[in-house]
Each structure stands twice: as structure tokens, then as C-alpha cells.
């Protein structure tokens, strides 16, 4: 058991780095994912992940595979899409999802254009699928900084954010923080995705944000519980996923997300709250009680 589950991390530095990187991403991104789901914005994460592509690509063009340049580029592109769609929604009667979809598609097309005309296929694969097994010190420090910043910001913005999600009209009636809260939240989505894409790639980064948070819904009722269980599930997925990728020579990003996906399916089926099995049991117990009453 020890050899199977722990030894790879003791023997290989790249596995330790990968695990630390993934834990940082789990701690930063999953709480944001919990709020994305509570706000019924699960697909916004996906849109944002695509939106950061041209920024990362431009960063790459300017200074090669530099973590800093690609991170800053990705953040600028993500924030630009968030701001533009926010403005479009406030200045016209276009719904936020429609304007976000439009701007992220523009951004994505731009990104693919830049990557495919100027970069090689290997670069494209790097951006799309990440390199969790090749994280250097700079990348690790950056992932940890992003996770810390994200957690602190979320803690500070917690109360307005909960209000903005649950009863936005009330928040608007008592304070002017509503628009700011929304923007800070989108910023957290963007920076966590930018952090995640170095390790897992733009496409898979959304997975670690959304899947554990979606699974947590079947085990916890309070916001704190959702965040705690979400983070635990995310860390577990990272650990098991990395091991699978090590032992079976699978690509690590998809392996991690698939483990998170399996956990989601298990939660969906057996979750103690609203899980399919729980609901069936409840229904059948009502039926039995009904039949007993008939007798």
C-alpha cells in the first residue's frame, strides 16, 4: 500500500512538486467553484477558461515559455472579457450570459489564431493541457501566491458575496458594494484559472474548480461545509490522479479531472443529501409507510 500510494512522492521530486501545485490549486480554486455553483454560474468558469487563452498566447509570443508573462497576459485577457461583458450588460439589455459568451468566443478565436500562426503544436498542447509534472520553482511559488491571495480575498468578501448570491436586491438596497463584489468574484475566477492552467491546462483547470464543488453539494448543507468537503475532494482527486498517471503512464491533467469526475458520479449516486440512492430510499420508505397505513 505504502509503495503504491506514497512511495512515488518520496522517490521523485517532480511528483512532490506536482502534488504541492495541485493542493495549492485545490485550496484556491474549489471555494470559488462552490460560489460559481451556488450562483448558477457553473458554465461561466468554462467561458473564462477559454477567455484567458489569447492573453497567455501573447505572453508566450513576447517572452517564450515564461510563467510570468503568460500569467499576466492570461489575467489581462480574462479581466478584459469579464469587464467588457459586465459593461455590455449594464449599458444595454443584453443578458450577462449572452454577452459573456460573445466576448469569450472572440477571445478564444483570437487565442487560437495567435497560437496556431506563431507557435508550434507543442506549445498549443502545453497551453491546452498544462504540464503538472514539470512545474518549476517559479510556477510553484506562483500557484501558492494565487491560492493564498484567493483564499484571503474570498474571506474578506465573504459576507457581501453571500448576499450578492442569495439576495442581490437586498444588497443593492443597503450598500453600493454589489457591482464591486461581482467584479472581485470574477477576478478570483480568472486568477485561479490562470494559476490552474500552468498545471492542468486551460481546459482541465475548470475541472478542479467545478467538479469537487459540485460533488460537495451531495454531502454538505452549509457554505462552510461545501467549501471544506470540496477542498478535501479536490486534494484527494489530485493525489489519486497523480498516482494513476504515474503507475499507468496516463497524462496527469485529465487523470486528475477524471478522478474528480468519478467522485462526482459516486456523490451523485450515494450522496447523503439529495443523492439518488438517498432519494430512492426515502421514497420507498414513504411507499412502505403508505402501504402499512392501507393495511
Amino acid at each position: 500500500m505504502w509503495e503504491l500510494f506514497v512511495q512515488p512522492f518520496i522517490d521523485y521530486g517532480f511528483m512532490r512538486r506536482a502534488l504541492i501545485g495541485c493542493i495549492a490549486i485545490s485550496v484556491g480554486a474549489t471555494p470559488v467553484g462552490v460560489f460559481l455553483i451556488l450562483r448558477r454560474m457553473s458554465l461561466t468558469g468554462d467561458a473564462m477558461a477559454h477567455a484567458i487563452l489569447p492573453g497567455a498566447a501573447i505572453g508566450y509570443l513576447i517572452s517564450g515559455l515564461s510563467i510570468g508573462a503568460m500569467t499576466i497576459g492570461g489575467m489581462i485577457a480574462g479581466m478584459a472579457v469579464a469587464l467588457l461583458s459586465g459593461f455590455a450588460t449594464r449599458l444595454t439589455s443584453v443578458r450577462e450570459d449572452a454577452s459573456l459568451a460573445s466576448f469569450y468566443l472572440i477571445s478564444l478565436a483570437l487565442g487560437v489564431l495567435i497560437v496556431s500562426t506563431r507557435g508550434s503544436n507543442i506549445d498549443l498542447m502545453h497551453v491546452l493541457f498544462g504540464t503538472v509534472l514539470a512545474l518549476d520553482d517559479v510556477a510553484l511559488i506562483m500557484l501558492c501566491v494565487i491560492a493564498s491571495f484567493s483564499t484571503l480575498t474570498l474571506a474578506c468578501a465573504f459576507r457581501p458575496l453571500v448576499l450578492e448570491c442569495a439576495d442581490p436586491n437586498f444588497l443593492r438596497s443597503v450598500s453600493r458594494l454589489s457591482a464591486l463584489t461581482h467584479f472581485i468574484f470574477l477576478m478570483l475566477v480568472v486568477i485561479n484559472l490562470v494559476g490552474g492552467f500552468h498545471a492542468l491546462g486551460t481546459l482541465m483547470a475548470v475541472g478542479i474548480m467545478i467538479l469537487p464543488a459540485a460533488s460537495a453539494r451531495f454531502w454538505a448543507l452549509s457554505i462552510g461545509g461545501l467549501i471544506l468537503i470540496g477542498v478535501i475532494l479536490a486534494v484527494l482527486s489530485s493525489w489519486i490522479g497523480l498516482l494513476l498517471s504515474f503507475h499507468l503512464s496516463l497524462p496527469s491533467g485529465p487523470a486528475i479531472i477524471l478522478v474528480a469526475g468519478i467522485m462526482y458520479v459516486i456523490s451523485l449516486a450515494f450522496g447523503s443529501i439529495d443523492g439518488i440512492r438517498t432519494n430512492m430510499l426515502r421514497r420507498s420508505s414513504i411507499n412502505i409507510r403508505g402501504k402499512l397505513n392501507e393495511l
Partner: protein
Amino acid sequence: MTPAIDFQNLTLGYDRHPAVSGLHTKIKAGSLTAIVGPNGAGKTTLLKGLTGTLMPLKGKVLLGSLSRENIAYLPQQSEIDRSFPLSVIDIVAMGLWREIGAFGWLGKERSLRVDAAIASVGLTGFETRAIGSLSGGQMQRALFARLLLQNAELVLLDEPFVSVDSRTMADLIELIQSWHIEGRTVIAVLHDNDLVRKHFPDTLMLARQLVGHGPTEQVLTEENQFRARQMCEACEGPPHVCGRDAA
């Protein structure tokens, strides 16, 4: 008494189509006023104008010494996401936002006040229940507890008794009357005329324009109601018809 609210030729609307036009009247401070009128008469629009979420197309609302911070507004069929994992105590404590803001500590004294507010709407024992598991009446009780904590001088209620059982309604009316006794200005949009006659001294009847405003027995008459319905029917259909009729 001094007027709390002074409507000066107020025209409110959406997308340049007026929903309330040329409203010119005053609501006294400390009064308990019902806003009545047919569907589409602009009642909710008027409340939105008061809270400042809707800017006047013409004219203005003067609030005297009242600041926007001193207005508590309970919208119709509150747009709270009931599936959100919040308990009764969470939702009620939101009423203290103006005191504690985004970062303030609730503290012992304030959490006692939250408990007291919950007790005064008869929800003691429900503190930790999720809002999703409450009935319509219980939810409305919780929202009234939140209004209590907001401690506002002007309370605006939009159809507060829709989907509420009669027992809850009686309790909530008692609360409204205690606010009236404490000298707060209370304005409620209502459609139950018997209720208005019984509990609301003043009535403002609206049919896109002012039909009448004053003591309820003088305003809530058969004649005025008939006139209000006619005015609203005349305004239905393309907007130019409304303009021609008005001229």
C-alpha cells in the same frame, strides 16, 4: 406633521414609456398608507422610484431629511434564492448590514437582538432551519424580522401578504401597526380592499396617474375604483392611444 415624502410632478417609467405620470402629492411622516389600484397601475414602479432604483423621467421625489439608508424595502415575492444554503438566523441578521457592514463583528448584544427579532415574528425554534425548508408564510415572517432589524424610518412593502396564511397575516399586520405607533412611515402596496379599510388610515389610489390620496374612507370608494379601472383600460394598447385620451 411635516411631509416625509414629497412627489413633485413625478413621472416614472421604463424605456421612455411612463408607468406613473404627473404624480403630485405628499405623504406625511409617520403615516400608514396603502397604495391601491388595478393591475399595471404603476404601484411597484412607484416603490422603485422611492428606493431610488428607478430614476424619474420627469419631476422628482423629495425625501426631506430621510436618507436612502433609512429606507427598508421588501419587494414582491422576494427574489431571494431559496435553494441557497442559508439559515433563518443568517437571513434575519442581514438586517443589521447598515450597522456592521461587510466586515463588522455581530457580537453578543447584536445577536441577542437578532434572537429578539426572530422571537417577535414567532419563529423561535426555527433559527437554524434552512430557508429552503420554510413555508411561504414562515419565509415572510423571517423577512419581516429582517425589516425589524433594519430599523428604518420609512418602510416600503410590496404585496406583503401574497402566499401567506391568514394567521401569519394577522401577526404581520400587528407588526406593521407597531411600526406605525413607533412613528415610522409605512407604505404598503395592497390589493385587498377590506384589509386596507380595516388597518390603513390613508390610501393612495393609483391608475398610472393619481386617482385619489387621503383618508381611506374618502379615497377607497366605488366611484374612484371604477374610475381607476377605466383609466387603466384606456391606457392599455399602443401608447399613443394613451396620449390622445389624456389630451
